[in-house]
């Protein structure tokens, strides 16, 4: 089983979400997702200030195998995009949970409760493996 930290929340589409002390959330893709995709070659983040609906396609990660959309885990406004990850896409492969892609100001803090915890996400990954 791949690495799934218990202090994070997760989506079905393999994003991780970290609640920051100021109420914003950082978003990246999970260890499992980067493992499926392989070596990253390109990252495109949403522009700061963009308003996202929950589940909206908002970023792209491209590996040698495939390009894949990244979805907004909750509705909110983009506060920051991580230029370091765009410059060094391989940082996602090196440490998926350190390589945050963008941060959001959630439109509604309660929406975070709808995300999965580590145990539920682990079961989700397991079920997708057939």
């Amino acid at each position, binding site marked *: 089983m791949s690495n799934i930290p218990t202090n994070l929340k997760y989506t079905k589409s393999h994003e991780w979400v970290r609640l920051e002390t100021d109420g914003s959330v950082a978003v990246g893709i999970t260890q499992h997702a980067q493992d*499926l995709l392989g*070596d990253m*070659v*390109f990252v495109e983040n949403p522009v700061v200030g963009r308003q996202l609906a929950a589940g909206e396609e908002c970023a792209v990660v*491209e590996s*040698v*195998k*495939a390009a894949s959309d990244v979805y907004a885990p909750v509705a909110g406004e983009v506060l920051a995009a991580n230029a370091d990850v765009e410059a060094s*896409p*391989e940082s996602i492969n090196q440490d998926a949970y350190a390589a945050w892609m963008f941060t959001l100001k959630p439109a509604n803090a309660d929406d975070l409760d709808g995300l999965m915890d580590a145990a539920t996400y682990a079961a989700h990954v397991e079920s997708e*493996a*057939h």
Partner: protein
Amino acid sequence: MLIFEHAHPGRRAHAQAPYNAPAADDLPADMLRQTPPLLPETSELDVVRHYTGLSQKNFSIDTQFYPLGSCTMKYNPRACNSLAMLPQFLGRHPLADESTGQGFLVSMYELQEMLKEVTGMAGVSMAPMAGAHGEFAGVAMIRAYHDARGDTARREIIVPDAAHGTNPATATMCGYVVKEIPTDRQGNVDLEALKAAVGPQTAGLMLTNPSTLGVFEKTIVEIQKIVHAAGGLSYYDGANLNAILGRVRPGDMGFDVIHMNLHKTFSTPHGGGGPGAGPVGVSERLIPFLPIPYVINERDFYRWAVEADVPQSIGRMSAFGGNMGVLLRAYVYARMLGGRGMQRVAEFAALNANYLAVELKTAGFELAFPERRASHEFIVTLKKLKDETGISAMDFAKRLLDYGFHAPTTYFPMLVPECLLIEPTETESKETLDAFVQAMIAVKREAESQPDLVKTAPHKLPSRRLDDVKAARELDLVWKAA
């Protein structure tokens, strides 16, 4: 090594220079080039050796089995090429009067009619010059149809997750929003998800049947009912038409638009960047929107349809008649096969795929959809092998090259982990298929006993393992003098 790297100052190939070339001495002085162009200075022999060497390194259908799933890399009969190269075809000027080109035009007209017959569609235009071009034409017609009815609230195109990657791209290019729906465990479109997805916002559904999972959508009639009842149109991606050619017709399945990849199913050359040909076929209600030019028959005089003939057309998609040379090759191919021959294409494509699938399963490979009969291609998943040995589908594919086989498609469709999508096509013999099975078994054994050998493959090709990560991150396409 590039031809520029063979260059030597002052070296020339005079034999190729035009004899008594007329001097263009009437050009204005300010338009004349002051420095010589940067061309490689090489001898004729340098050029011959360089390009002959490159051709010998080429891995192609003319030299090796090429089971690249979803691409239909089948043999291109030489007769198609010879006949399309007749001087009467090659020497035609595209602006020559139609009265002097009736032979060519009737060939194009007959090809249109044959494509209509074999797909069950009511109208065909061969103007699009590639599969993606055809897809664009198809969805543009769906949009033109809704717009002409004032039905402009239809903004969504539904695409199953097993679709070709081009489908969502096409829908987006045509200004639609893509709505993805899942497939079930058997590889079929999830009907409940489809029912939930359709509505007054639905412009249409894009579907490949057989799908990229290599299985036939058993519920295609039900799918059509759901989409049509919601007021949407249905689009057939012809990428896998080879599997059903002359046996099942998209028109009979109820599709409104289809595109055909002539460079797959009708055996015109591809894989080297084209040129391709992506004719579109439509149901009766979409005929007014067909792209021009296409050939019309007026009391046995054949001519190109122009804007005035089809005022509602989505427009002109090629300056002349599409990729005429490619269309001619497809025409010869269709004439050589005939109706019964086309059915045999599908029969043998399916037979070869199923034979290969069963042989590989018997040899211990895991099929992604073991309960389903393969249509013309099938998926092997190497996930178990990867978990046990660390050998990935990519490593496996690279090692197959050492055995003289082009690798199957890897990592597509993305739904299946560590997959190989294998399409043998109808033009391969049983002996070739058996040899491929033996190579697959040999590589699997190596993965288990000498994994390093497989991880560092290929070993016998002119290039070893390429650093595709570096190539993608540091794209370097333009040669510069050192």
